[in-house]
Structure formats: C-alpha cells, structure tokens
C-alpha cells in the first residue's frame, strides 16, 4: 500500500504513544496532532487526546493555564516539541540563531517548553529537517534543557527524537541519543553526515516499519477529518480535504 511521507511520520509518532493515557498537543503541530488522533483510534478509545486550539478534542474548560496545571499534577503523559536547533544533550532552542537577543534568525519563541519539558514524562521531539543546521553540537539558546541536576524536580523529559531520516531514543542518565531505526531509503552514514553531535547506535539498527493498512485507513478517514478543524491548510495539502486557502 502506497503512503506519503507525512502519513509515515504520523504512524511513527503514533507508535511512540503506546500505553499513554493522555497526550496533549501544542500549537503548530499538525503531524503530532494527527499522530495522537491515530493513536487514539488504534487504542479503541482508551486514550485521551487534547489538541490546543481544537474545539472538539480538548479536555479543558479553560484555554490557558489549565493545561500547564494539569501537566504539573502528572495528568498529561505525553507531549511533543520541535526545535529550531536540537543538540546531543537534548537541549532545545525555539528562539533563534546567533547572539541573543538580536539574533540573525529569530523563531517564534519558547512557548511552554521550559516548563512542560520538565513535567511531562514522555516528551517526543519531532523535527522533520535532519541537517547539521538543526542537529547542532550546542544550541544557541536553551529554551528548555534536556537534563537537569539530580536535585531539580523533574518527573519528565525527552524520550525520543523523530526526523525525516530516523528515530532516536534519548537516555537521560547518559545524556545521549541512541539511533534506534532508520526510515526506508536512508542509512546510518547519511544520519551521521547530517548530525552535528555524536550519538550511540543500537545493535542492530532496524528499518522503521511502514504504516499498517489499519493505520493508513484511520489516517485518511477520521484522523484527516478531525485534524482539518484545527489545521485546515495542512489537511488540504496532505489529505486534499477542505477548501484551499491561498498561501
């Protein structure tokens, strides 16, 4: 069964949500949002999904502080973050490139990362672009640190990193990523060539599995319809549904 690159990423992220009771999805996250809806569909309804900005898929009667309070109480099990830069210790930078504050490249900002990265047990890093400008030796601004000193209250943190090329796990004790699987058509050498930090390699490294027919059916059906409410441009581009809005 043929599938698009986006559909594959959705399926990979969904596979990392196995066993999660409540996953929350932040802003600017159509693929993680779709993955969460897919994981819920495949969990036969036992998973709760909260998508920020969605009317139908959210757990809260407040659109602001409640999600953060919820996370601090341990009521959110998984969350996604990206990163304009990500380094080998899983520090993430959502602010910009160059000397802060007047950086030559400026992104939107840290959002809730400096908080949720500490408190949500399963943080999945998702950054499609896998290049040396993203996967850097050291980030220019730490929006949120990958690990903390032992006395810092930190029930949460990064557990995985998914890119266009591969899937890494993260070991907070060793403060290092480990390459777990490579997406079809790519190689360990290609990952190394495009990564600015050193990482461990699982033995053996496997090929990332393709989406199952059940997953693809769910993605193209209920998942596409739901995500279109929050991300109409994405749904139009990837699934061809809804009305096109001029870019």
């Amino acid at each position, binding site marked *: 069964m043929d599938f698009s690159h986006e559909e594959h990423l959705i399926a990979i992220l969904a596979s990392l949500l196995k066993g999660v009771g409540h996953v929350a999805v932040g802003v600017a996250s159509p693929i993680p949002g779709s993955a969460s809806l897919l994981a819920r569909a495949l969990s036969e309804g036992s998973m709760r999904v909260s998508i920020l900005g969605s009317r139908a898929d959210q757990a*809260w009667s407040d659109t*602001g502080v409640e999600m953060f309070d919820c996370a601090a109480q341990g009521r959110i099990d998984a969350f996604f973050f990206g990163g304009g830069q990500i380094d080998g210790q899983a520090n993430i930078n959502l602010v910009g490139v160059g000397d802060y504050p007047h950086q030559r490249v400026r992104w*939107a900002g840290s*959002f809730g990362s400096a908080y949720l990265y500490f408190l949500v047990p399963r943080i999945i890093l998702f950054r499609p672009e896998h290049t040396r400008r993203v996967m850097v030796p050291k980030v220019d601004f730490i929006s949120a640190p990958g690990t903390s000193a032992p006395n*810092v209250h930190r029930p949460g943190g990064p557990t995985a990193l998914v890119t266009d090329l591969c899937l890494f796990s993260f070991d907070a004790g060793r403060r290092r990523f480990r390459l777990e699987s490579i997406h079809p058509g790519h190689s360990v050498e290609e990952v190394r060539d495009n990564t600015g930090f050193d990482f461990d390699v699982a033995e053996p490294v496997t090929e990332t599995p393709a989406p199952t027919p059940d997953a693809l059916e769910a993605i193209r059906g209920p998942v596409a319809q739901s995500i279109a409410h929050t991300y109409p441009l994405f749904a139009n581009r990837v699934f061809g549904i809804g009305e096109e809005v001029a870019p």
Partner: protein
Amino acid sequence: MFRPDVDSLVASIRDGARLAVPKTEAGVSMAATRSLIGRGAKDLHLVCVPTSGLQADLLIGAGCVGVIECAGVTMDEYGAAPAFVRAVSKGSIGLVDSTCPALYAGLQAAEKGLPFMPLRGLIGSDIVGRRDDMPVIDNPFAADDPIIAVKAIQPDVALFHAPLADREGNVWIGRQRMLMTMAHAARQTLVTVEDIHDRNLLDDERYGPATIPSLYISAITLAAKGAWPLGLPGRYGEDGGHLAEYCRRAATPEGFAEYLRRNLAIEPTAAE
C-alpha cells in the same frame, strides 16, 4: 464605563503603558489595535498572554512597541511574524523572552496581591538565565528543592475583545479564562464587545461563572467584528485569506507600509 467608540476607549492607554493582550484565538481586540496604530501610540510594553500573532506584529511594524514580553509570536499556519522577526534582528525592540506558564503565574501573583509565584520547570533554561526577575529560590517546605520565583506582572492595562457585555458593565468571556486573570491583575481593563445585553449577565447561572464582574472593568465599547481578521471563539472564524495576504505583503517593510495604507488608511511615519 461605556465609551462612544474605539478611539475614545484606547485614549486611556498612554504611551509607554504596560499593555497585556491575549493570544490570537482568545479574543484579540483588533479594532482597538488599529486605533492604537492610527493614533501613533509609542513605546508600549506589550505583555502577550502568553503569545501573540497579527496584533503584536502590526503594533511592532507600525513602531508602537518598545518592549515585547512573550512566550511566542507567530502567524501560526500562515508562517513567521514578519515585522517581529525584522525588529528582533535590527534590535529595534526590547525582548523579554518568557514561557507560557510563567506569564500566567506572574499575572496570578498580581491578582492575589503577591510579590511572586513559585513555578516548576525552567531551571537551567536561558529564559531564566537571561533575565533578573526569575530567581531560583529554596522551597521552604523541603530540603534541597530549588524552585523558580516568577515576579508578579501587573499590567497598566488589559485590552481584549469579548462576545458580550451587559448594561452594568459585566463582560462574558466564555472559556477564555485568562481574560479573567488579566482583568484581575491589571490596573485598568478595556474591552471591545460584539453585543451589549439588556439583562444582567451575573443574574444568569449559565453566564455568571464565565463573566468578569464590572468591578474589574474600566471601559467598554461596541465593536462589531472587533477581532477581525482574527476569529472570536463561538462567533466567527479567522479570515484566512486576509491573514495569508498580510504575511505575503508584510514580508518586506515596503509591503508592510502598503498594508497599513490599504487596510488602515494610515500613512506610516515612525513605522519600520
């Protein structure tokens, strides 16, 4: 309490004010924003609760902002906020980078009359490393438990757009409860609304819990479609075509000036 129009409402916002505004989808008073730009407001300290988009970008591009305190500025699906990005690289605005829960916590401290609010997370980030108002303190109830203290944020003015007010000056906000926190924390609260109801909102159990009592409201004015081209939850969606066009035009300073001329009939002077 009731002002005849938006211009007289924003006359209460002096240049240099610390102005709190809500995130894009929570009820942004774009009507008041256009009026501030038209007046040529200067040196605002914009506190975004906790993020912003078109509102901050327009104010920055038009030269109204001295400092922006926020957890993010983005045009969401339409792309980066072009005037914000240019102003940062040029160094023409001051930046107080924050994180969403810290902005909420600062406002919550102010609404309780407290000097600060403790907050988990953040330790070791450059957000706390780059500012002096978020020290690490010791939890007095546990040994060796460092925790962040977020200084209270008391805005001079909270400004937003809501679906409904009543004749008493009570304002219904639905589930956008950060607007309540903003109103509690700020010295003055200015609101544009879609409609004014004759019946007292606080007398109705369905509306009361999501209504800001007039105690906290300084002034209100009617502004139909006052969030346009942004949306207002439960009332109308965003105008995607307009937002896409804004991003396309504002990609250059000339295009931004052209946008102000076409859409606000403003000839920018101090703009970028």
